């Protein structure tokens, strides 16, 4: 049986290599892939319209993470300054906001626009496309032992659609009435009626177009990831020998394929309501002295459609980060990840449950209260696999020999914020308790810690860890340490006090908290939060500097700097088409044989055959 399987696998690998050869117009059609074929590459095919997964990963990293991330974080600093020192004049507003900051004072509409675009950019562009785009692209082929993605062309198309959607989103910042300003959840009717707020005109149209293109990009990418993981694994790479990174990327892609189309339908129906007079989400509306014709629609329907994506979306964001963390913690603890099968099971459980918890965002939306009970139940269920993951990380550290490379620090940081942020989910997921903290700063603090900051830490961990693989050079570790410590201190400094602001009853998305006196005594907490936000935000410049400097002048890397087991470190440092010279390495064991007794080194790469009398440790 086993032999037969292997044979099938071998045939499959042969076929795939052949296809890959065809793709490159390579005359050599043998199963052994020859890298030294003379394939002409121009600047454009190599750096711009590249179909190589490693180059596409770099493109995502530079545009999705560095560029969009910079804009998203900068926006948050702008509105945090307004919250701390409301309606005061700042030169920085004059420079960046121009006519939207008369005499340097931020206009309330642009405040709403900033929080909207900050949310959109961070959730979708940085943490969905940027994170998955970079690491799924880089690691899937390299860690499963494939020449490239199943379809290099679709992969390229996916990146350029993402690029297009970024350009459309950013161009909406420059339209006359301002960008979308209805919150990143764009609930109608606010987002549907240009009469209701200036941002719901052309700005909102561009937002919707950008998201439609984004979803197309995301679906192409996800399908490619799924097909690649299922079909292109090298000989010996059974599902339970996959590193947890790949499990996380695979399941993330599956959730994306299930839920993103629903957001597309919501966006399309909203476009219909906005531009073609339909009434999917609108009914009985009177705005600016006029009764509108809409009849029979319901905004609650939009909320259902939005959150059917929106909630799985937070797992689309956090799962890759958790996958990256699993890999980095195991490698740097020099220990197998604790409870590999439990980790896989919890990824699958989280994925399944993530699609049936969406209405916990809608407990008080006016939907039937009975639904509230159902969704409370499923929501608290999802806390169980999440808790298992946190405990397994901690158990992995136990009796390890921890190597505190910057990637490892950020991974431990992730576990810390994932716990802190996850725990307050117990309050928000409980329909009763949600009543009084819903749409307050408590929610803002919760989700920033559990998905925003945690996913960002995962992203940083991944960049520090795989930088040598991406750019053939090492990042400076001391700058990494400084970056880490300032970031973690500021992150808790921002979001810990914010829970109290929420529990004091302050609703989120208020342009100023001093329009009436009741919240006056929160002013100094808001100043503290903003000061930490400024320190934390500015400290990202250290990372940016380290990144750019190391790209060109960093210390040249050795082939396997972290002494890791996974396949990507068996590939040559120099990036070549097809990833490995000659035959693709075969896999003989799981990815976590660290410090296995009976071996001299404290790591045993997956390519090393099982020795005689060696116990097989696949769990």
């Amino acid at each position, binding site marked *: 049986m086993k032999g037969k399987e292997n044979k099938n696998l071998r045939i499959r690998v042969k076929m795939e290599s052949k296809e890959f050869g065809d793709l490159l117009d390579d005359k050599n059609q043998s199963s052994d892939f020859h890298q030294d074929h003379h394939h002409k590459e121009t600047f454009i095919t190599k750096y711009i319209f590249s179909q190589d997964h490693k180059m596409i990963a770099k493109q995502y990293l530079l545009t999705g993470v560095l560029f969009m991330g910079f804009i998203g974080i900068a926006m948050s600093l702008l509105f945090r300054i307004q919250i701390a020192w409301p309606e005061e004049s700042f030169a920085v507003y004059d420079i960046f906001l121009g006519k939207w900051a008369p005499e340097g004072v931020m206009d309330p*509409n642009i405040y709403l626009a900033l929080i909207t675009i900050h949310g959109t950019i961070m959730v979708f562009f940085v943490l969905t496309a940027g994170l998955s785009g970079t690491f799924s692209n880089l690691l899937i082929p390299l860690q499963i032992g494939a020449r490239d993605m199943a379809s290099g062309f679709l992969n390229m198309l996916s990146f350029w659609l993402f690029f297009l959607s970024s350009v459309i989103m950013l161009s909406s910042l420059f339209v006359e009435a301002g960008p979308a300003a209805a919150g990143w959840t764009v609930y109608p009717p606010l987002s549907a009626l240009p009469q209701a707020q200036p941002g719901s005109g052309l700005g909102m149209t561009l937002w919707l177009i950008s998201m439609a293109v984004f979803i197309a990009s995301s679906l192409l990418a996800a399908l490619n990831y799924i097909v690649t993981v299922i079909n292109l694994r090298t000989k010996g790479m059974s599902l339970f020998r996959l590193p947890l990174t790949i499990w996380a990327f695979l399941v993330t892609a599956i959730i994306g394929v299930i839920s993103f189309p629903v957001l597309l339908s919501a966006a399309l129906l909203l476009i219909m309501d906005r531009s073609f007079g339909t009434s999917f989400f*609108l*009914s009985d*509306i009177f705005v600016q*002295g006029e*009764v509108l014709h809409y009849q029979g*629609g*319901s*905004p*609650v329907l939009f909320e259902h459609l939005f959150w059917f994506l929106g909630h799985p979306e937070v797992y689309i964001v956090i799962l890759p980060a958790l996958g990256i963390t699993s890999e980095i913690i195991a490698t740097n603890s020099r*220990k*197998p990840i*604790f409870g590999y099968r439990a980790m896989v099971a919890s990824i699958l459980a989280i994925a399944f449950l993530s699609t049936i918890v969406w209405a916990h965002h809608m407990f008080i939306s006016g939907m039937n209260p009975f639904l509230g*009970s159902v969704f409370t139940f499923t929501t608290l269920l999802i806390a*169980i696999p999440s*808790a*298992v993951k946190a405990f397994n990380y*901690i*158990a992995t*550290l*136990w*009796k*390890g*020999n921890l*190597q*505190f490379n910057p990637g490892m620090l950020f991974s*431990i940081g992730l*576990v810390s914020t994932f716990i802190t942020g996850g*725990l*307050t989910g*117990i309050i928000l997921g*409980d329909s009763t*308790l949600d*009543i*009084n903290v819903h*749409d307050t700063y408590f929610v803002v603090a919760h989700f920033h810690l559990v998905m925003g900051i945690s996913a960002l830490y995962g992203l940083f961990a991944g960049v520090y860890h795989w930088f040598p693989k991406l750019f053939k050079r*090492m990042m400076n*570790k001391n700058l990494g*340490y400084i970056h880490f*410590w300032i970031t973690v*201190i500021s992150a808790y400094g921002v979001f810990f006090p914010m829970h*109290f602001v929420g529990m004091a009853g302050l*609703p*989120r*998305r208020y342009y*100023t908290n001093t329009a009436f006196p*009741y919240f*006056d*005594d*929160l002013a100094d*907490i808001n*100043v*503290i939060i903003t*000061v*930490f936000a400024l*320190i934390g935000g500015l400290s990202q410049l250290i990372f940016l500097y380290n990144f750019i400097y190391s790209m060109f002048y960093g210390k040249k890397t050795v082939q396997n700097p972290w002494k890791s087991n996974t396949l990507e470190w068996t590939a040559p440092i120099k990036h070549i088409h097809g990833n490995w010279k000659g035959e693709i390495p075969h896999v003989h064991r799981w990815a*976590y044989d660290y*410090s296995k*007794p009976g071996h001299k080194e404290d790591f045993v790469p997956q390519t090393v055959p099982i020795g005689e009398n060696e116990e097989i*440790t696949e769990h």
Partner: protein
Amino acid sequence: MIGLLTGTVLLLMGIAIWQISKIHQLIQNNMGIKKDDSQIATEKDNDLQGKLMFAFLVFIYLVTIYCFWNYTKVLLPESASEHGVTYDRLMWISFAIILFAQTITQAILHYFAYKYRGIKNRKAFFLTHNNNLELIWTIIPAIVFFCLIIYGMITWSSIMNFNDQDEDALIIELYAQQWNWKARYAGQDNVLGDANVRFLNDFEGRNSVGIDSSDPNGWDDIVVTQEFHIPVNRKIIFKMRSQDVLHSAYMPHFRAQMNCVPGMITEFSYTPTKTTAEMRMNADIAAKVERINKIRYNNSQKLLAKGEEALDPYQFDYLLLCAKICGTSHYNMQMKIVVDTEKDYNKWISSQPAFSSIMQ
């Protein structure tokens, strides 16, 4: 306050300078014989970072203690509604569990990070899994969550499944629009008249919540703006409507919130237990008012110096706030709630004009 800020900034700058000096030191070292610029953590790095991990645990604890010590005073005072007492109890139980779990797990996480910081030539303990251990930490959270779910669900249904045919309950409509609230009382018959946005332009626009004048139930309805009064210890059933975009009727002191959705009527119900006058006597509220007035006094001094008018002293009132993003003035969409004794309430409501006076 300022001291803390300066302290933090100095601390962070200190760390930065210290680390930069470390880099410098490394460069100096590199001049000599020992050359380690591999950018991979050395034993020395492991030692320092492991210790910093432990320090970070202390930092987390300090931040937690600081926040609870200093910010508990800004939290909402005890509930002013009947169900709010149960709400608060569930909240504190959940918080106790959260704090317990947080304290323990963060301690173990950071302690392990410190304890097992890497040493050269030591091999980690090879351990792949432990079914019993994993079972324990799956089952314990499951049991805890199960108990919370049950408690939460019972409370939830007791709050949400109120009898909306209750004859003794007072029915009030909260009407939301960009960016103000109106309240409509059902009048003598305690039945709200039919209403729709299509009637808003009737009577030269004075039909401010769109009551259908052909429905006699609506003739005695009373619409108020700026503030609305409710009698203490009587069940109130709120019916929410919105005329334009989503709003959310948030009454934090009563632990009450419900979205207002154009095209449908949503409901929430509570029984207020403390009059405004009683709440003003509450120690937490009195302290809060004092703090706010101190801030307002300082601000007034600045205004006076500029030749502007001083601020009025602040007095506590219950608030109805908007908690759902609704456009430009979302931040100032509020209405005063006054909880009166039955007698005061009756006096107030009888002085308000009914819809029929607008119809003539």
